[in-house]
């Protein structure tokens, strides 16, 4: 796959190790939190691609997971709750040379941020979006999220959750995302591979990651996933939209890997094309005045 426009494989440079991407700030997550696995997988993926920290930007919202950018030596934008994708879109459009990776939680991305998600997908803006999906609100101490299961009991749903869970993979697929995958924080090598593929992919890439919250989610635990998570078999054709939708249909087992991957012009490419098309040498405001004389 052609993707020279998005990533900076600097062959001249030294090969960076995963630890080279670690910042001085110690992660503040609870011991055992799934987000450590995600962070480590990301370090590996960045190292695999040997991305230049100075040309990489991590964008996040608010939540335990959204603290991730501070733990990585790249540029970072830790904004407000739920606005990862508009910010990431602005960065990528402003400077397509940058590798832009959005990160955050299921609350941040699928609850308050859901109004931006299908739009980013249909625009096919060339960014990667990693959601640490722990099916709960961690930072605010354990309330239901849009991916929480039915009957899930929290302090805000003492009688059990009565709202159906969102299926972020299916939403991404029907909205026009061109790369849709799922990973598991306890399988960091697999996850790192998916991250690397997602970052290389030219277009909007969602990676939804099961990343257990050991402190507040007593249902979707590491034990829970044991035996339920399996790698998508090679027989799956990731360019087949309906097959991808079927695979993503909830049935108690959790395939991980790449559900869907197709090619379609990216927003940033097309915006660049418009610029080329509109380009005039030495444009001047003086010229623009003519219309108003």
């Amino acid at each position, binding site marked *: 796959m052609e993707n020279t426009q998005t990533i900076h494989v600097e062959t001249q440079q030294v090969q960076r190790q995963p630890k080279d991407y670690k910042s001085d700030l110690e992660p503040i997550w609870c011991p055992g939190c799934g987000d450590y696995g995600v962070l480590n997988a990301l370090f590996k993926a960045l190292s695999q691609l040997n991305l230049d920290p100075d040309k990489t930007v991590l964008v996040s919202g608010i939540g335990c997971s959204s603290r991730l950018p501070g733990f990585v030596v790249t540029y970072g934008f830790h904004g407000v709750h739920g606005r990862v994708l*508009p910010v990431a879109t602005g960065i990528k459009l402003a400077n397509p*040379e940058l590798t832009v990776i959005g990160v955050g939680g299921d609350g941040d991305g699928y609850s308050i941020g859901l*109004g931006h998600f299908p739009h980013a997908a249909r625009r096919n803006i060339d960014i990667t979006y990693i959601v640490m999906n722990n099916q709960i609100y961690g930072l605010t101490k354990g309330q239901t999220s849009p991916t929480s299961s039915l009957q899930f009991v929290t302090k805000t749903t003492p009688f059990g959750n009565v709202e159906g869970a969102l299926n972020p993979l299916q939403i991404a697929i029907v909205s026009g995302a061109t790369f849709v995958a799922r990973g598991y924080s306890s399988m960091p090598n697999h996850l790192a591979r998916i991250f690397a593929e997602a970052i290389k992919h030219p277009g909007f890439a969602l990676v939804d990651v099961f990343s257990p919250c050991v402190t507040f989610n007593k249902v979707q635990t590491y034990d829970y996933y044991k035996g339920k998570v399996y790698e998508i078999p090679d027989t799956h054709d990731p360019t087949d939209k309906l097959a991808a939708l079927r695979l993503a249909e909830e049935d108690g087992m959790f395939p991980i890997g790449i559900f869907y991957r197709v090619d379609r012009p990216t927003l940033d490419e097309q915006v660049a094309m418009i610029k080329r098309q509109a380009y005039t040498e030495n444009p001047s*405001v003086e010229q623009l005045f003519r219309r108003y004389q």
Partner: protein
Amino acid sequence: MEGSRTDFVVRLAGESGEGVLSLGEMLTTALARLGYEVYTFRTYPAEIKGGTVLYQVRVADHLLLSYGSQVDIFVALNEEGYRDNISALRPGGTLIYDSDNVPVHDLPNNCVVPVPIGTIAKKEIGSVLTKNVVALGAILRYIGAPVQAGEQIAEQTFKRKGEEVVQKNFQALHAGYNYIEQYADCSRPLLQGVAEVNPNRLIINGNEALALGAVHGGLEFYAGYPITPATDIMEVLAPILPRFGGVVMQAEDEIAALGMVLGASFAGKRAMTATSGPGLSLMVEQINLAGQAEIPAVIVDVQRGGASTGLPTKTSQGDLNIAVYGVHNESPRVVLAPTSVEDCFYLVQHALNIAERYQVPVIVLSDQSLGHRRCTIPKPDLMRVPRWERIVPEPGTNGEYARYAITETGISPMAIPGMPGLAYTATGIEHNEYSDPTYTPENLQAMKSKRFRKLQTLGEEYAEQFVRIWGDPEGADVGIIGWGSTEGVIREAMQLAQAEGVKAAALYPKMLMPLPVHIIEEFASKVKRVLVPEKNFTGEFAAYLRAQTNVRPISYAKDTGLPFDPEEIKEEIIHVARM
């Protein structure tokens, strides 16, 4: 105005969707091209079809400051428009009306000119769509303008629809023109003498001037969401900005628009959005982020009428409060308000400059009456506002860069992604100099002081440059302190008051936050009484002045959806002087 030979007001009123706005714009441009000064006002219903559109143009051979107090020629194209506006026609003024549509009662004090506009368009020209051009011909003839002025603008307007359409409209123009020539018994050549055509002028409205000013000010990224009356800023920029290498994005909502702007700005681009009240409300959270995380951004608010959805196509100055105070807890921001169409061009450049240099969100408060005010202005001086660039650090080693370094001015050099060895994470959480989350009282005090210090620095260095004083405050009976779009009308009212023996002076600070407190207090100390006229209900600016300065002004707050009338302000000045 004494001594001037040409100075009259034409008001057009007709059904929304029937080309009244376009008629107004054609008339205005035609007259401006003849060399006259023009100054317009328009208002239209919130619906696409139905309701009455109103367009008013004042024409003179001297500089105009307002759209006038009374109507000399009223052109009524539908019954509702006639009914609602006929009382504005001055005694002795002329009513031109579409006799196919408008039943007119006795008007003993007016000259009355019926024109069967619909019949002419349909029967003679064969297209009801040409009604407004028939009317254009009639008006031009009535005021004594050459028919060529109409031909030129008609050609320009209809060119892209093909030669046939242009010809049909020429016919329509001449038909209207000739009708008056043959039948009107009180036609008067109101255009006195021949004005000189000045190529160094533009015929432009506030939104257009602001958009062009932004382009000239180096705008590189615009994201917005459509909203009346700000949409046309995006519509002017969309075809233009890419030519300059910039990007225009229509976002999914205002939250996303500002999110994109902050992203682009973080990535090093001069970035802006424009909206109106409801959109500004949705941006409140991220404006605060920009203040706290120190990300440059310009947010233009073209204020409209009414709270909530309110009166979307009317004007008001009702958003001062939310602009200066609309933030949970406190982070710095700058608020600017242009006072004229010309000013829109320059002030937005300052806004971009200030945002970049001080790393703050800058809110620019325009309004519907200013944004849609089409008038003649001197061709802007492209050298007047020099470009300020963002202050960036030297390349460094990752991990050592103090993004939020505490400095004397409060400004910390800001790295841009791509710059080597300066990787940092911008954050809205309270942080230390290295942008690490930090929650101690000492750090909070130090950082908040640093951020607010930027406003102080800005105020001290530039407050004066953004203040305009009209007249001599020393011993004036009334000192007016106003803001935004009312400047012209206030100046005209001051002249009118002067003619009645009342001495007034006016001060317009274009920078409302930080407010030039000392200049305002000095001005106030020289005048007998301070009057604050503004187009809102609660007197927001007067209250703001009371909060921020020692001035105790008299508030004249009036919310009607329409701009002030100079006569009304004159009365108020006299009233206050004699209080």
